[in-house]
């Protein structure tokens, strides 16, 4: 089961690198915000996989919860700011 979780976390890490292409080369600010939101959602799953691999799940659950909060608040703040300021 640990080998399976390690394999799945490596696959999701590869998907994060694929999303990083859109975050670096994507035209405009909106594409970058979508890519950062997707990467944050994948990171929550990776942190939980790391908790099960290291057998310290009771600590890593709190880190994952805080990361979900930071991801939501950051995306909402940036979208409100660029709504007032103008995207391009």
């Amino acid at each position: 089961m640990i080998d399976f979780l390690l394999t799945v976390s490596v696959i999701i890490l590869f998907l994060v690198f694929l999303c990083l292409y859109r975050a670096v080369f994507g035209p405009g600010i909106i594409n970058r915000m979508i890519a950062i939101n997707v990467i944050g959602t994948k990171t929550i799953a990776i942190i939980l996989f790391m908790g099960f691999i290291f057998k310290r799940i009771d600590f890593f659950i709190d880190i994952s919860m805080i990361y979900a909060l930071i991801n939501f608040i950051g995306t909402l703040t940036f979208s409100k700011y660029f709504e007032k300021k103008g995207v391009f």
Partner: protein
Amino acid sequence: MHIVSIIFIVCGTFFLLTGTIGLLRFPDFYTRMHATGKCDTLGSLLILAGLALYHGLSLGSAKIIIIAIFIFLTSPTATHSIARAALRNKIPLWKKEKNK
């Protein structure tokens, strides 16, 4: 019980893969948001459900279910907010016959 959690995690990874391909391949960012906003929510929800089934009945699995409910509420809200910021700035929609 491990077989059920493995099935859940594999289905969630498939949905994350689909959302990433949609993010890379679609032509406009409204369609990119359409791909990632749904696939990412469902994929992370399935992965968290599989991990909660693997962990068993305890306080930790209750916290994982709370994270899943939080993602289910907030990820469509963030996508809607980004789409509204794009639409208020009058970014044109993608049309097929215009780009030929």
